[in-house]
């Protein structure tokens, strides 16, 4: 999250208070901005995953280099070659022998399944990414609710104490009132 900056060298309390209120308003509109949640989500992964077992930059990697975790699959992928000119010749031969190959097996179901799997992989990564964000958001909201709960608990305790004081004032009326004085000033 960006730090709270006081720009001017001279202090202007009213300006500082305006900045504070603006920041509070922003937070009230949404507990955290999308960017802040994303930052926290990435930091959380870093904190909970063991770097030796798992790449802590998981989401950044997924987003930056999809070829490292998924394959691009099309109908022609099975017949391609990466060997430059020789590869181009090989690709031509494979194309020419394709009808003969089909006498031995049918590659179409496999091509179709792998194409679908590639799409599913992309979908799962997208889902995983969004789940991580939602989980982070929910964690923050739960934390906020816990804090509010503690605050309400404090208020209830304060009210209970006040009630006790008022009761004792009634009970001890006419006796020693030194501890129950609801003084003016």
């Amino acid at each position, binding site marked *: 999250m960006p*730090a*709270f900056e*006081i720009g001017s*060298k*001279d*202090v*202007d*309390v*009213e300006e*500082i*208070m305006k900045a*504070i*209120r603006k*920041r*509070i308003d922003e*937070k*009230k509109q949404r507990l955290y901005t999308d960017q802040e949640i994303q930052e926290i989500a990435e930091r959380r992964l870093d904190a909970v995953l063991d770097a030796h077992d798992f790449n802590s930059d998981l989401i950044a990697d997924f987003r930056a280099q999809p070829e490292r975790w998924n394959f691009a699959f099309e109908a022609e992928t099975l017949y391609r070659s990466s060997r430059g000119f020789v590869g181009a010749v090989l690709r031509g031969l494979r194309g020419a022998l394709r009808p003969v190959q089909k006498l031995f097996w049918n590659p179409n179901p496999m091509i179709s399944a792998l194409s679908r799997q590639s799409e599913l992989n992309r979908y799962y990564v997208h889902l995983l990414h969004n789940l991580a964000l939602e989980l982070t958001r929910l964690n923050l909201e739960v934390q906020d609710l816990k*804090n509010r709960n*503690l*605050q309400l608990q*404090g*208020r209830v305790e*304060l009210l209970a*104490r*006040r009630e006790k*004081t*008022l009761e004792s*004032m009634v009970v001890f*009326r*006419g006796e020693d*009132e*030194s501890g*129950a*004085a*609801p*003084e*003016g*000033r």
Partner: protein
Amino acid sequence: MRLAFVVQRYGASIAGGAEYHCRLVAERLARRARVEVITTCASDYLTWANCEPEGLSELNGVAVRRFAVERPRDAVRFAELTARLFGEPARTEPGRVDVERARRAAPADAERWLEEQGPFAPGLVRHLAASRRDHDAFVFFSYRYYPTCRGLPAVAERALLVPTAEDDGAYHLPLYPPLFRAPRAIVFNSVEEREMLRRAVGPSLAGGDVVGVGSEVPARMDAEGFRRRHGIDGPFLLYVGRVDLNKGCPQLFELFLRYRRETGSRLRLVLLGQSVLPIPNDAGLVPLGFKPDQEKWDALSASLAFVMPSRFESLSIATLEAWWAERPVLVNAKCDVLRGQCKRSNAGLYYASYEEFREALALLESNADLRERMGRKGRAYYEANYAGNVIETKYLALLEPLRAASARLTA
């Protein structure tokens, strides 16, 4: 010049704002005039029990004449009268005043309330009337109590009133507006206090000046010594004053402990002052009780910032002292005076909600440069407005016409 200071309580260990204010001014002016303090034998503002002997004594070079309180406060009866005059919520919550109800209060009820509030010392009032020619001027502190309300009219032509009026609504009672019209001049603590009284009393409010008060500042402050004596390490926020419901302390505890829980901050809250309410048992709170002046200055120099949660302040000497010690302050925005002082000095932040408290405190805690700059602003503000010589000059300017009038009468 012969001056009499009239105040409800007086003593070195009395931490009440108006009483401390009175002592500071009396001791300062004692260098320039013959000063006598006229007060009661009480030291506890809840009971007004007579604790000091009657008669003349001396404190820090100032003569003190004490009169017995003839009847202690009946707390239950006082609460009932408060509820009748100001509405039921005022019984337990200071400042929850039904203004219209207070304005319409029957004079007899208001009289009974004033006597019950105390300190009921008719002997003191009789003495004022009898000794009116023995003093060139009478300086009354705190408008709301019996000695001022009944004593000032007896010497009105020689009276200076320091109302120390807080925005708690009590001044709406019909017995007070005549009091604010009676003295020769009023010494206001702040522009906000003057405006508040002008709204309540109207244009017939007695004239005067905004003065305030400056403290006796120390020759040196020992932050390390304070930490060592009390075993406090790490940064802390400081509160100085009575730990009391009227001062907003329960709310401060709630806000501060929530701040610690939510932010994980290790900041602690050190409390200097007598406590009249239970303090939560939490590692974040460090209650040290009432301490001598030097201890307070040492605590200020060791602190990260000063906090004043009270809604009802006519000045807050403790806040001014924090500024002298170059500490930024965090105050309750619902107190017009404190908020106004922060804006004028640029040396303090204010909060009206938990969110503002959290953001303002987090800012002060994390930004040492800002703290330093605000601290310097606070010191400059203090020196310009509340330094001893500034206060003395203003008081003497207000007292001079009274002295001249007294001299003419004597001649």
